[in-house]
């Protein structure tokens, strides 16, 4: 039996200050990065928003011999376009739709849409794509067609600017939906456990989302629609983790009321450590596989899940539990302590619906 994880005695709560310091440091780094970038003259935006969110240029290229998607992607990478959307046209197999985000230096006009600026952007986008595609051969420019000039390799048959798939409407809706979802979580945990736990779990979720966003701002990873899916996944993952430990704390409190809440929480984290390591280790490794082998297009998604898997586990121990404990101590231990200590080894009403006969787990 692989039971090497059964006897852990770590004072997790004792390290809470260090944990919180680390979290605050990362969040500050994210804040500095996002604000700094916006206010630096000539700087970039707080986040590197992809073509899904801010729109861009779509170029339709017709090839004599269509290169593989990956080759086109690599060619675009050499000219600085890291996250193009490459979509083949299945009824015209020699044509490819290439969508790229706004080219640096040309920003989307915010209020008064200026036709000239837009045309400039489209031209800039076209020029960028052309410089990338030129690695496959000469473009049939102007009136020349692929048929009339045998030395050409491709022709850009259409360029246009595209709006955002996920405009501000979808973004706002995603945020409101998630906030309502968290409110539901808050109420349910408060009902099943206590307000203090509910607050701990929900604050931990906010923490996790902020940390992931901090990473995206600092490293300028591109945010596209898939990142929203990853963030939703992370919220579920983080809450799941918090509840597993809360459930254990609740059980321990009902079994053995002599210890302090502090000890009890540490004990619960240690008792569930084997589960934490197995489950979260598996999640972590699976996501790592996605980061390494998942390909270019899923990179943002994988990275968000990767950071999320780490911070989701960490926040349960470092954020959710300390907050719950801190708040309960504020309220006073009365509710916990005034119950007569129960002798061990007897028939106990566990906090669950059913009654179980059990000894406390040997330590």
């Amino acid at each position, binding site marked *: 039996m692989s039971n090497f994880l059964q006897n852990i005695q770590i004072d997790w709560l004792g390290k809470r200050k260090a944990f919180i310091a680390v979290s605050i440091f990362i969040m500050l780094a994210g804040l500095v990065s996002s604000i700094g970038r916006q206010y630096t003259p000539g700087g970039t935006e707080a986040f590197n928003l992809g073509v899904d969110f801010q729109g861009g240029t779509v170029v339709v290229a017709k090839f004599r011999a269509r290169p593989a998607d990956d080759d086109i992607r690599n060619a675009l990478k050499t000219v600085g376009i890291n996250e193009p959307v490459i979509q083949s046209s299945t009824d015209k197999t020699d044509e490819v739709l290439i969508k790229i985000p706004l080219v640096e230096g040309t920003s989307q006009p915010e209020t008064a849409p200026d036709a000239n600026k837009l045309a400039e952007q489209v031209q800039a986008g076209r020029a960028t794509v052309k410089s990338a595609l030129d690695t496959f051969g000469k473009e049939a420019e102007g009136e020349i067609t692929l048929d009339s000039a045998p030395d050409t390799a491709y022709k850009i048959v259409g360029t246009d600017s595209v709006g955002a798939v996920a405009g501000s409407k979808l973004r706002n809706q995603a945020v409101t939906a998630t906030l309502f979802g968290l409110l539901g979580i808050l109420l349910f945990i408060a009902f099943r456990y206590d307000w203090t736990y509910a607050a701990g779990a929900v604050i931990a979720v906010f923490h996790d989302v902020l940390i992931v966003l901090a990473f995206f701002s600092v490293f300028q990873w591109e945010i596209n629609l898939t990142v929203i*899916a990853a963030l939703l996944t992370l919220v579920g993952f983080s809450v799941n983790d918090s509840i597993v430990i809360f*459930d254990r704390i609740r059980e321990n409190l009902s079994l053995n009321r002599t210890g302090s809440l502090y000890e009890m929480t540490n004990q619960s984290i240690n*008792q569930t450590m084997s589960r934490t390591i197995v*489950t979260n280790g598996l999640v972590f490794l*699976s996501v790592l596989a996605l980061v390494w082998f998942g390909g270019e297009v899923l990179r943002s998604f994988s990275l968000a899940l990767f950071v999320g898997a780490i911070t989701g586990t960490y926040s349960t121990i470092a954020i959710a539990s300390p907050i719950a404990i801190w708040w309960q101590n504020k309220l006073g231990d009365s509710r916990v302590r005034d119950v007569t200590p129960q002798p061990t080894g007897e028939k106990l009403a566990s906090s669950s619906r059913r009654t179980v006969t059990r000894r406390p787990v040997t330590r």
Partner: protein
Amino acid sequence: MKNTGLLIRTAIIIVITLVAVYLVFGPRRAPNASDFSLQGVKDNLAKNINLGLDLKGGSHLVMRVKTEEYLKRLAENNESAALLAAKEAKDEAGNPLGVTDGSVVAESGNYQVKINLTDASKAAAVIDAVKKKVDFVNWTESTSGNSIIWSLPAQAQGRLKEQATEQALKIIDSRINAFGVKEPTLQRQGAADSGQILLQMPGVENPERVKALVGETSRLELMKIVSPPNPTPVQIYPSKEAALQSIGGKESDSRKVLLYTDRDDSATAANTPPDQKPKQYVVVESPAVVDGSELREAAAIQGKGGGSDYQITFSFKPAGAQKFGDWTGKNIGNYMAVVLNDEVKSAAYIKSQIFDSGEISGRFTKNTADDLALTLKSGALPAGIEYQEERTVGPSLGADSIRSGVAASIGGLIFVILFMLAYYRGSGVNAVIALVLNMLLTLAALIVFGSTLTLPGIAGLILGIGMAVDSNVLIFERIREEMRAGFTVSEAVSMGFDRAFVTIIDTHITTIISSVILYVTGSGPIKGFAVTLILGLLINLFTAVFVSRTIFMWILSRNPKMEKLSI
């Protein structure tokens, strides 16, 4: 006795598994030999699961809202309203202001409303009167000689065009959603005032019908017909010229000539196709009594004749109903026309005051009636739509990246399975069975609900699988703990499941609650995520708890005094 319980559990599991295998891998027709080959299974799987645009591709339609048509109608409406207001206005002495007529210029790039006066000194008074009634905020006004001219500057034109496109986008969005196109993407394309809209939708069975549905202008108006009242039959004209002649040779602001496709209820006439019937015209009073913007509800119902003859009933919002009620009350005996896109669909005399409902009949089939009701409900498009480009496209995530994503996920899954087998030995088999069954059942559930799988949906699936693994880990770790505490195998298994069940229920219900909220309040990708997650978690309560426990029960029933469990 205990054994019958076990047999019933086993039977439930086997039946559910078989149904799921059929749903996921089986054909939706009489099975034949090819369905049992690997390729046949693959084909069926691809057919059964609807994949979204990002994973499979679909149709790519570029359309353009005819914004110039919108501006033209705006100019015309403003002109007739302005003329009406100017003619009604009086000066301080109570005399008319001497307004003679008005005209409209509406060519691309140049939109003007002109009102002519007999006395230039009254211009200021006319402008005042007009401004009270008509919204000329974006227009620049000028006077020259005896005329007042409002013209629309280029910048305002651009802004209005953009607004019209934006409005069309919303209406198209509601139409394709109401039609049931799953997970479309809809975005503006081209310059801000180009009026272009790009619609991508995953494999739609009937793209032509969707195209017609999206492009339907659906401008509904109820208008008074110029005709002697009932019992004299409604005044119709055999040609447009004859109709025009009756109103003095040309259409005016208050009189319009419209085509009237007569609908005869008699069985013989119903067999004549509409385009072979003689064309008829009627004269109607403009502006309309009420229009489509006042509609509250529209539905297709079977006509009185039954069979394949359908009509559309509609009802008004309170304000529209009031307006309509007032008007019908005053016009009993007069004829009224139901006008759709400038064509009279039916004409009838008003028997009594009508408040809130009416109907459109006009030889509709069930599909056309359904579609028309749907487009009426979603509102009229600000202007017509033309299709500019149509193609079918591959997945937006790129076929190659989907392949590598799938490969990485399968790699991750195999790793998880190997780990569970290595770490939990015999019980690991148990977990793997539960896990595989979970994925199979989730896919089957997605098929039953007709959901479209997109990348966010897959993210939901991944979280669901993660929580399924977690459930097994929680149970097994708990059983190990109880065994360490000195309990026998069967006690430990039973307690492990019971205790872990409390945790599992709490984590699952929390996530289900938040997913349901996501589903209700979210849209598109967020809904897709929520659906797969909810299904995955509900199924996990069955697979991780019920199925896994049944397997342990089998093991224990064969050896009740078991002392060591492979875990």
